[in-house]
């Protein structure tokens, strides 16, 4: 009983001097002071380290007579660039040569992202196929590419395949006609003529109209619930506009530019160098293997119950995929997909090993030509950072739109 009673006894207040409450702790134990001090200290250390490094560079630059300005960018570059989609001449400035490199990087990265996504999705779906043989082929593709270094893959494609192709005179011919040889790939390509303006205008109008029709009919379906066939309707509008444009130009919207073998090389047609082809194929297959795993994980993350419920509601296969599985799988797929895209952009810098003149290659050539390693590297890094930031910003906006809103 005494024990029990003691439970209900209110404990006596601890003896406490009233002054203790109001007393502030000494400043070296005051958390607010400590926080500010820690930040000041780390900032000071950082600034000191930076100052020390920059000071060393300036001393080294003075001793070796290097300049640290960016004025050299206006000087004439003086080196040729193997391939460029914008006109370039060695007498153009370093800045312009650098821009050619940026364009080449964006070209290979853009096309690479597109093809890697397509191939990656295909392989990812094949990986989930109920057909055992198909899924084994997908597994072999994925495991082969994921476990070897990209650089080795690129060298295999470039040194092992593209430079081992037959000479120009004995080109491999595919229907198209597409010619494949040591000099790269030549294929027929529709070129615009002086008469194609009406076609382009009506094509542009067609695209805008198709988007409007798509949005309007889809809204109509969402509000009324009636089937409006928005996909087919907008496609139809586009086709009609393209057909009208074709008629307006009298059937001469394009001129087929067909490569012709003359002397030692082809003339005309669309030409891609073996360097570009090897880089593109290597980047696409390598990234596709990673994207395939991302796609697989995303689709597997959709719970089976969703699928069964959709079947029970009587949705057909395309509705099941488009309305139930994909919207949910995309939420899982998009964030890792963003980092795969960024990886592809950064990996395009490996072109330096096979000689495709992208940003990094041009930068390295500039350093050989003009010195100024520090400035050139600053420029290269800034461009890569900018590409990375813009890509991740755009895709993160898209990601935010499709994610579940949680409250």
């Amino acid at each position, binding site marked *: 009983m005494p024990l029990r009673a003691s439970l209900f006894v209110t404990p006596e207040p601890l003896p406490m001097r009233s002054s203790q409450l109001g007393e502030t702790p000494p400043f070296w134990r005051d958390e607010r002071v400590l926080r500010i001090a820690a930040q000041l200290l780390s900032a000071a250390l950082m600034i000191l380290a930076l100052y020390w490094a920059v000071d060393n560079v300036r001393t*080294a630059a003075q001793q070796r007579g290097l300049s640290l300005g960016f004025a050299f960018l206006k000087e004439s570059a003086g080196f040729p660039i193997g391939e460029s989609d914008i006109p370039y001449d060695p007498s153009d400035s370093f800045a312009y040569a650098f821009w050619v490199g940026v364009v080449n990087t964006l070209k290979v990265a853009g096309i690479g992202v597109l093809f890697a996504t397509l191939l990656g999705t295909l392989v990812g779906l094949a990986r989930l196929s109920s057909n055992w043989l198909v899924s084994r082929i997908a597994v072999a593709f994925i495991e082969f590419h994921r476990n070897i270094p990209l650089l080795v893959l690129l060298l*295999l494609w470039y040194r092992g395949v593209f430079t081992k192709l037959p000479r120009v005179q004995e080109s491999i011919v595919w229907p198209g006609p597409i010619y494949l040889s040591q000099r790269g790939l030549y294929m027929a390509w529709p070129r615009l003529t002086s008469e194609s303006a009406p076609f382009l205008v009506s094509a542009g109008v067609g695209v805008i109209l198709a988007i409007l029709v798509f949005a309007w009919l889809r809204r109509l379906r969402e509000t009324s619930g009636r089937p409006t066939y928005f996909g087919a309707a907008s496609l139809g509008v586009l086709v009609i506009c393209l057909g009208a444009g074709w008629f307006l130009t009298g059937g001469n919207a394009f001129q087929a530019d067909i490569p012709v073998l003359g002397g030692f090389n082809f003339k005309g047609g669309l030409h891609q160098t073996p360097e570009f082809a090897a880089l593109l194929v290597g980047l696409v297959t390598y990234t596709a293997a990673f994207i395939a795993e991302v796609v697989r994980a995303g689709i597997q993350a959709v719970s089976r119950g969703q699928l069964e419920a959709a079947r029970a509601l009587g949705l057909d296969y395309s509705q099941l995929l488009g309305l139930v599985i994909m919207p949910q799988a995309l939420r899982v797929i998009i964030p890792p997909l963003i980092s795969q895209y960024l990886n592809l952009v950064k990996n395009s810098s490996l072109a330096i090993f096979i000689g495709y003149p992208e940003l990094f290659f041009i930068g390295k050539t500039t*350093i050989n030509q003009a010195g100024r390693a520090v400035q050139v*590297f600053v420029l290269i890094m800034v461009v890569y950072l900018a590409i990375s930031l813009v890509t991740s910003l755009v895709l993160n906006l898209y990601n935010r739109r499709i994610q579940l809103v949680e409250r």
Partner: protein
Amino acid sequence: MASIYQEIRPPEPPGPLTWIRKNLFNNWYNSLLSLGSLALIVVTLVAVLRWIFITADWRPVADNLMLYLVGQYPREELWRIGVIVSMLSLLLGVSWRIWGGVMRTLAFTYAIFLLVVALWPSSLESFALQARAAMFANLGVILVGFLLGSSHRLRGSHVLIGWLVSLAAMLVLLSGLPGSQSLAPVPTGSWGGLLVTLLLAVGGIVISFPFGVLLALGRRSALPVVSAISTLFIEVIRGVPLIGLLFMSSLILPLFLPPEVRIDRLLRALIGMTVFSAAYMAENVRGGLAAVPNGQVEAARALGLSNLNITTLIVLPQALRAVIPPMVGQFISLFKDTTLASGVAVLELLSIGRSILQADPAFIGLQMEVYLFVAAVFWIFSYLMSYASQRLEVALGVGER
């Protein structure tokens, strides 16, 4: 009674023919798909096998095993490599007994590697009998380690310390001591091959680990300046390609240092790899930190632990356990990325291959053989590591406890 058992026996597993019919030829498009895949597989396999066994000329690979393994490391100092191999054998054997699981996979991989080297299909002149015998003997050393590990007094922490001490000792062995007769210095310029590849990968991941943890803690810090500096560092490094960092560390780093400081080429590449790896490590660790429930911190605070103790005793041990599988993944990609060091004249596995191709005019046009061999080495190592990592994930029970 017997008849009842017979009645409730499960149906016989389907025979292979039934399985093929049900899975591959259950409807017309699946049959078409199966036939197409089968044709693709057969054509590819026949082409690949025919190329490997008939067309390919494997001389640049078979005759240069020592170059691929250790590069130009002085041949009279090869005993040091032998000692290192034995140390690894012993440690792997002990670790296998103590930790099992992943370490067993690693020990097996290592044993297979030793066997392949010992039985390498080339003449005895290009790869001596003593070296082959030493490789065989190391299989025994693994077993000795395994038996040693059975001792009751040996704990996991002892083995961990043993690993760290041995790694340091291996570095001393490799580089030698200045002014020593029996352990003369070997300049890093003559190191090469798989030795350098593994050195860059292991060195990069081990050195970047503490920096990665600090950066992750810094990024999550409540102090805005600290968090801003860490975030800036991580995002800048992650935004630029590794090859850029390697060129920076080899071309520009010397400019940023006082002229009297001279850094070895291999070390500069290692610095580049480490800086790169630290940023990615930080993001992995940050993921692990985010996975520790907030209640843990609150409970620790309620117990009166200081901030330092909360971090080191409560948060980090839980966070790091969750981080081990992604860290293995990071190690694999770093291992593959060591090939980029060939761009800054470090003689790792790939650049050894390239220089062998250039050294002998008889090897012109044999790029496919050499690069495929290099690819195969990377493939086997990476595949086994990712296999081990999957087992590790199960063993650690990440996400289950």
